[in-house]
């Protein structure tokens, strides 16, 4: 069984690779390469797989998942300029793919510690573009 909790955060980012020339960044990232940054209302869905506990009837208390997401993701990410304020995006390009992977890496050890399996991290950069991280 899979349970999912959704949270939102707003953040700004720039997509550019410092090793590449301006024109190449422009070609790869278009408007997203604007060095001053731009922002999104990100929507994050985190899915956990497991069986309902025989006594509580829950795979994982969604309140617990909500608190975990707020502490590990929303708190550090929300209303930040990711490139400047949230490691590893000082040296990793904060594409939706890389953000989804970072979120996975932040959450997975905690869920493993609770004996649960992180099944999916789905990150909406806009309502029309989203990325699923499927593990390495």
């Amino acid at each position: 069984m899979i349970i999912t909790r959704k949270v939102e955060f707003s953040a700004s980012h720039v997509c550019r690779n410092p090793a590449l020339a301006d024109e190449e960044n422009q070609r790869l990232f278009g408007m997203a390469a604007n060095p001053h940054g731009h922002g999104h209302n990100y929507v994050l869905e985190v899915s956990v797989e497991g069986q309902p506990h025989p006594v509580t009837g829950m795979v994982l208390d969604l309140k617990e998942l909500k608190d975990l997401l707020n502490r590990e993701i929303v708190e550090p990410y929300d209303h930040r300029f990711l490139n400047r304020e949230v490691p590893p995006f000082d040296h990793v390009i904060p594409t939706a793919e890389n953000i989804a992977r970072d979120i996975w890496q932040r959450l997975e050890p905690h869920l493993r510690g609770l004996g649960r399996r992180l099944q999916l991290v789905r990150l909406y950069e806009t309502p029309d573009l989203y990325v699923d991280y499927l593990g390495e």
Partner: protein
Amino acid sequence: MFRVTRRYQFAASHRLYSPRLSEEENLRVYGKCAYPYGHGHNYRVEVSSLGPADARSGRAVDPALLDRLMAEQVLHPLDHRNLNLEVPAFREVVPTSENLGIEICRRLKRGWSAVFPGEWPKLEKIRIEETPRNIFEIRADEIE
């Protein structure tokens, strides 16, 4: 590995009517969808691709390239069209959303390697919402 999904929309009209069925059978099978002058939908299409993140860009799919492919292969030919009359694939084939999904998948596969020449990304599946309540999903490897 990542799955990147991009949502698009287009509006088109169609009529569900099979020349291999009688008038009564068409009405029984397709109901209002068989009315003679056709009707339309705001179709929403989700295109999902699989791939690793590219080392230079940190992205698995360049959305601008996918947008171009989708515009050329799907949106330009289908948007604001009568599918039965203006899309050759539906001269003989009933434009149900199942068949429309197959056609969209075929069109994307046809143009894919010109836009994405490398091993990745791969087209994984498409999902069509004919209305917010009628949804169809087709894996790229289901069709030739």
